[in-house]
């Protein structure tokens, strides 16, 4: 799984950080920061859920 985030789209809801804190963080303004673009399999479910609940479609997933 490969993860990309689109910071201009992010609305700082923080949901991805709650779900997958090893993969996503927030900068000082609350905007998403990607900690790990190629998370290990144990994080995949949480990352998929993050993409599903992200209100701004700011998280894109690609298989690899």
């Amino acid at each position: 799984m490969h993860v990309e985030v689109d910071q201009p789209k992010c609305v700082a809801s923080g949901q991805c950080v709650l779900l997958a804190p090893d993969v996503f963080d927030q900068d000082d303004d609350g905007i998403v920061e990607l900690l790990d673009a190629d998370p290990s399999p144990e994080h995949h479910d949480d990352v998929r859920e993050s993409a599903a609940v992200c209100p701004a479609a700011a998280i894109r997933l690609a298989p690899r």
Partner: protein
Amino acid sequence: MTETVSHAPDDLTEFPMPRAARCPFDPPEALRARQTEATLSRVRIWDGSTPWLVTRHDQVRALLADPRVSSDVTRSGFPHISPGSKAGSEVRRSFINMDDPEHSRMRRMVTAPFAIRKMQALRPEVQRIADDLIDDLLAGPKPVDLVQAFALPVPSLVICALLGVPYADHGLFQRHTKVLVRRSSAPEDVSAASAALTDYLDALLAEKQAHPEEDLLSDIATRQVATGQLTRQQAARMGVLLLAAGHETTANMIALGTLALLRNPDQLDVLRAADDPKTVAAAVEELLRYLSIVHSGRRRVALEDITYAGVTIKAGDGIVLAGETANRDPEVFPDPDRLDLGRDARRHVAFGFGVHQCLGQPLARMELQVVYSTLYRRVPTLALATDIERLEFKHDGAIFGVYELPVTW
């Protein structure tokens, strides 16, 4: 209360529809009936206009996230919630009623304090606030109105601390906020209440500009107002929005949530026994799903023709998105009318969806987690001190809840 259920797709039922007295937590039957229809249909609102009604979870999420759908209250065709909200829409305009890029530019000025790490840092303070109020509650007379004694002061004290608003003024801003969220408020009362609140925030911002402290209003005053990115008027409107939103929503979640739990004792036991943050966090999501709180529909207007779910929404058509039925959509939440704190409810739309999704949701989540994991444990015999039939529900509110919740223990 009786209900007229109509199955004709183009029947122009009035919206909002009356809720059945039988269960105050369930959306109106007539609204649920629309959910079984695949296509969108229209309703009639207070001003005689006939916006599209959206009830299904997938449709609500898709349209709330659609850039061709506008939140701009000044556009013609926008389906206002009440005469009051229409009358004051221009003067009250803040980022929730704007579209990108203006919306995003202004919203980002105030996202910083709501980041998850900041919320974690604030949690002990919220816990202290909740504990102090429960101490007072237990030391005081019973029965007591839980709304006044606890449900309202918790979010009020927290949002005041965060914004830097003196809590001593709470009588003033709670009085005006009440007028703003009632659909039945007269337009001139809504205008007067917004003007009073804006003036109050404007004066406070002036003071913060001269003597900044460690709070959000000081930040806005010294960063955005001082540099000309925001006029003080715009900043004051933003302050009104944050102050009002911080009050009504969480307070209703606490009071109505408590009532729902008292009616579902097995679920209340789940919370009392919970000793891990995950169980509590899941319970909060389920209560958000089950109660929804925003029961008057999220309001939008189409910017261009949108063909969706078998119909063409024309440019300028109003759109009303019913989150309370989306949150009870059986396609997404099996057995949706059951309050089940163990289910995965994260995909609820209680905070909305799309770029306007609630800015304060990390704060609301944290407050509710603290409250739900504290109140019922510290007051284990908490019980309703009246019949549920005697409670007055906020049927005329933009946010659903109870006006009073008499409790004893």
